[in-house]
């Protein structure tokens, strides 16, 4: 995976679709920092960025059918937003009050779809710088929530809520790691 592979005009999308349609198992390898395409949501990927040779070893093991330990995982599902009437949201019958700067909630696997009171939210086209620092008080709890006991938590929906203009979009548009990437914004 490279930035060019996720462009809309990339031929990789068609190749990936064909692979999935015909029952092949894609093995994403990350060679340059980028978001994973949505088709690969939930898939484990092999990191080639820091050490190519180690990546090859892991890839050969994966091709041989081994399940690799400590393989990074694709982006969890992250919901970002607020309700239309205030900063309160109701998910699964539980009312969450978004008065804090950022709340990170691990929602149960059987969390129902996004409540209808949420509106579709399109992040602005402008994005923060590729690398930004600070905000460890926010990022660390998120990282901990997503990698509980060091293990990636797949197929979990996470809510990042908070008051208007507190940086929720920036957090998602430029996540601190590929683990925190793709997102359904509401």
């Amino acid at each position: 995976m490279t930035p060019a592979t996720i462009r809309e005009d990339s031929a990789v999308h068609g190749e990936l679709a064909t692979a999935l349609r015909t029952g092949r198992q894609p093995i994403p390898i990350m060679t340059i920092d980028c978001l994973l395409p949505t088709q690969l949501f939930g898939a484990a990927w092999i990191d080639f960025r820091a050490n190519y040779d180690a990546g090859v070893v892991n890839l050969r093991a994966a091709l041989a059918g081994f399940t690799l330990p400590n393989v990074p995982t694709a982006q969890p599902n992250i919901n970002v937003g607020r309700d239309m009437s205030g900063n309160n949201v109701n998910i699964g019958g539980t009312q969450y009050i978004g008065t804090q700067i950022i709340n990170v909630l691990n929602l149960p696997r059987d969390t129902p779809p996004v409540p209808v009171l949420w509106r579709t939210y399109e992040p602005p086209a402008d994005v923060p710088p590729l690398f930004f620092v600070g905000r460890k008080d926010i990022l660390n709890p998120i990282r901990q929530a997503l990698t509980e006991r060091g293990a990636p938590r797949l197929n979990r929906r996470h809510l990042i809520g908070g008051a208007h203009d507190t940086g929720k979009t920036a957090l998602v548009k430029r996540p601190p790691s590929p683990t925190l990437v793709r997102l359904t914004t509401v």
Partner: protein
Amino acid sequence: MNRPTFDFDVFLAYASRDGFTTAKRLYHDLTAAGLRVWWG
């Protein structure tokens, strides 16, 4: 009528814009390891 088959072990999908070098290197390494690799 026989259906066409894909007689390779690996299909390398990549973007030539920024993935060609790595894909080429990977093709050679996997081929050297005995895998049948298709890349275009």
